[in-house]
C-alpha cells in the first residue's frame, strides 16, 4: 500500500471521484492552474479540464452560493474556501441558504455539496488564517462537519462527504497536511460520516478530541501511559456533526473521567456540546468533573505567541493529573 501524506490523500480522493462521477466539479480560488495554495488540487485541472476544475473570481459568498445552485441542479460541486477564516464571508450562503434548503422545501430540493477549507494553527500564518471555526457550523442544523486528522481518514471521509446527499463542511488541518505519511489505499474506500475512531484503548480516562488537536492529544496520552502507567482511551471524533454519541457514552461508562481537547476557543465550542452530552447521557458514570483543554477565549493570536495559545502537552498533562487524582 502506498504511503501518503494528507495532501496526497485528499488529492487522491478528489481524483478518484472526478473519474467516477462526471457530475462532480471543483470550484474555488486558485484551485485550477496553480493547484491550490497548498497543492491539494494539484494536477486535477490538467487531467479534467477547466470546465470541471474551475478557477473562480475572488468571492467566497458567490463560490458557496454557486455551489448551492449547481448542487440543486444535480451536480456535485466541491468548493474550496482558501482558509477557514474567510468562511465568514459565506455565512449567509452556508447557514441561511445551503443548510436550510432541504428543510425549507420539505425535501424537494437537497444539496449534495462539499465545502473544503484548511484551518488550524502552528504554521505561522498571518491573521485569520488559523482559526478553528467548527463551532459555528455545529450550531447550524443541516450541515455536516467533518474534521479528519490522518491521511487515511481524510481520504475515506472525503469520499463519503462528496457522496453524501447533504451539504458537508470538510476541514483540513494545515499543520497536518504534510506532517506525516501513512498507508493509504490507492483505490477508493469510504469512512462513514458520524463515526468516531478509538485511537487508543484505556480504562482510566476518556480523552475526546478531533481535527488539528488530535495528534497533540494522542501523543500526550501515549507519553502519559509510558511515563505514568495507567491507561487513557483516546477518541478521535472525526465528524463533529453528527457526533458519534454511542462511542462517547460507551467509553465514559467505562472510564468515568473525561478530558476534551480541541483547538477552537473554549466558550461555546464543540467541547461544551460534548460535555453536555456526557452529562445528559451518562452523568452517573462520572467520577470527576469534565475538563477541557482548548484555545483561550481570545481571537486567534499573532503567530509570535501562537504556541502559548494552542493546547499543548503540558496543559493536557495537568488536566489528566487533576482528573485522575480527583476523589
Amino acid at each position: 500500500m502506498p504511503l501518503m501524506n494528507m495532501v496526497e490523500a485528499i488529492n487522491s480522493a478528489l481524483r478518484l471521484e472526478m473519474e467516477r462521477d462526471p457530475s462532480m466539479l471543483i470550484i474555488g480560488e486558485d484551485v485550477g492552474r496553480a493547484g491550490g495554495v497548498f497543492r491539494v488540487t494539484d494536477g486535477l485541472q490538467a487531467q479534467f479540464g477547466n470546465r470541471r476544475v474551475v478557477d473562480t473570481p475572488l468571492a467566497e459568498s458567490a463560490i458557496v452560493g454557486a455551489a448551492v445552485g449547481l448542487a440543486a441542479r444535480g451536480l456535485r460541486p466541491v468548493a474550496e474556501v482558501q482558509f477557514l477564516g474567510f468562511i465568514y464571508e459565506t455565512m449567509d450562503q452556508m447557514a441561511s441558504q445551503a443548510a436550510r434548503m432541504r428543510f425549507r422545501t420539505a425535501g424537494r430540493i437537497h444539496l449534495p455539496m462539499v465545502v473544503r477549507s484548511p484551518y488550524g494553527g502552528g504554521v505561522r500564518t498571518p491573521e485569520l488564517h488559523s482559526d478553528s471555526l467548527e463551532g459555528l457550523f455545529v450550531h447550524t442544523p443541516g450541515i455536516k462537519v467533518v474534521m479528519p486528522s490522518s491521511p487515511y481518514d481524510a481520504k475515506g471521509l472525503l469520499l463519503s462527504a462528496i457522496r453524501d446527499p447533504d451539504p458537508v463542511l470538510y476541514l483540513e488541518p494545515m499543520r497536518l497536511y504534510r506532517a506525516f505519511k501513512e498507508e493509504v489505499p490507492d483505490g477508493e474506500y469510504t469512512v462513514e460520516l458520524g463515526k468516531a475512531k478509538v485511537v487508543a484503548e484505556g480504562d482510566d480516562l476518556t480523552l475526546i478530541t478531533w481535527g488539528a488537536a488530535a495528534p497533540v492529544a494522542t501523543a500526550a496520552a501515549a507519553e502519559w501511559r509510558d511515563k505514568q502507567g495507567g491507561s487513557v482511551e483516546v477518541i478521535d471524533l472525526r465528524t463533529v456533526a453528527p457526533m458519534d454519541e454511542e462511542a462517547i457514552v460507551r467509553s465514559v461508562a467505562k472510564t468515568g473521567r473525561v478530558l476534551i481537547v480541541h483547538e477552537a476557543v473554549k466558550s461555546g465550542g464543540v467541547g461544551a456540546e460534548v460535555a453536555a452530552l456526557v452529562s445528559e447521557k451518562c452523568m452517573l458514570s462520572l467520577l470527576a468533573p469534565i475538563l477541557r483543554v482548548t484555545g483561550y477565549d481570545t481571537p486567534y493570536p499573532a503567530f509570535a505567541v501562537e504556541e502559548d495559545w494552542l493546547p499543548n502537552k503540558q496543559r493536557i498533562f495537568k488536566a489528566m493529573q487533576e482528573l485522575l487524582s480527583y476523589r
Partner: protein
Amino acid sequence: MWINPEDLTVTQWQVLNEAGELVREAPSLGHRQLLEVYRYMVIARAYDERAMRLQRQGRIGTYAPFSGQEAAQIGSAYALERSDWMFPSYREAPALWVHGAPLEYSLLYTMGHVFGARLPEGVHAFPVQIIIAGQATHVMGSAWASTYLEDKRVSLCYLGDGATSQGDFHESLNFASVLKLPAIYFIQNNQWAISLPRSHQTGSATFAQKGLAYGIPGVQVDGNDVLAVYQVTMEAVRRAREGKGPSLIEAVTYRNGPHTTSDDPNRYRSQAEVESWKQKDPIVRLRRYLTGLQIWDDEREQALWQEAAQVIEQVVAKAEGVPKGTLAESFDYVYATPTPRLQEQWATLERGR
C-alpha cells in the same frame, strides 16, 4: 436603447512615458518634492528586497512583496494630507510609510508580533487588512464620518484587482455614491490575484469603469508613472474635499515578485511577462525624468542607495528590538474590561496551564 460595454472607451492617463519624458504637463511638484518622492520609492524598494531576505532567514513570517508597485502607492499616498484616512490591504507598507507609519511597524506585523497591528497614535490609518475588500466598506464609513463631522477629510482605500470581485467592494461603491461621500477607491491592478490573471477576475475591459454603474467617475492611470498617479489622486482628493463625492482610480501596474513568500509564480506566469514589465519599472522612469531635469546623477543615485541601506538597517534593528510581547498581555485587548472568564484563563496561563 441597449447600452453596450463596447461603446465605452477608456484611455490610460500618463504624464511620463517609459523614457521618462513628459507627454503632458507635469503636476505642480517642486524639485524638493520630486526628490522626496524618489527617495521614498528607492527606500521602499530597498525595504522590499531586505524583507524578502529576512523571510528566507526565518526572521519574519509570510511576506507580500510590493516591488513594481512603488509609484502607485507612493504617488497616491503623497496626494493625501496626514489628517486624511487611509485603509490599506496587506501590500501597502510604502503607502503607510508615506502616510506617517514608520516602516518598522510594517516589519513588526510580518514578524507576527502581538502588537504588530497597532500603528502609532496620530497615524490616520487602519492596520493591514487580510480579508480581501473588507476595507472597502470601512473607507465608506470613514468618509461618512467626515461628512457628518464636516471635517473635510478624505478617506482612501487600497484594493487589488482581485478585490473588485468581492461583494463588499460593490456594496461600498453604491453606498458612497448614494450618500455622496468623500471616499477614494484606489485599485492597484497588478495583473494578478495570486494565480489568477485579470481575465479570470472580470469581464469588464477595465477596472476603471467599475464605478460607472454606481454613478462614480473613474480613471485608468499608468500606475508605474508616479507623476500621473499623483495627479489623478490629487483630482480625486479635490473632488472629495469639495463635496463632489467618491472617485475610483485604477492604477495599471505589476507585481514583480511572488504573491507572497509562500507562492511560486512560475506555476502560472511566464518569465517573459515578468521581463517585459521590468522595462516599465517605476523607479527607473522617475530617475530618467530627474536626470533630464538635471537634478539627479549617478553619484547622487549611489549615495541614495547607501542611505537606503542604512535606513533599512535601522528599521530592522528597531523592529527586532521591540520587546517580544506575550499572549498574556493580549488578554487586555479582547474587551475594554476582561470578562471574569478571561481573567480566570489569564491566571491559568500565567501559572502555565
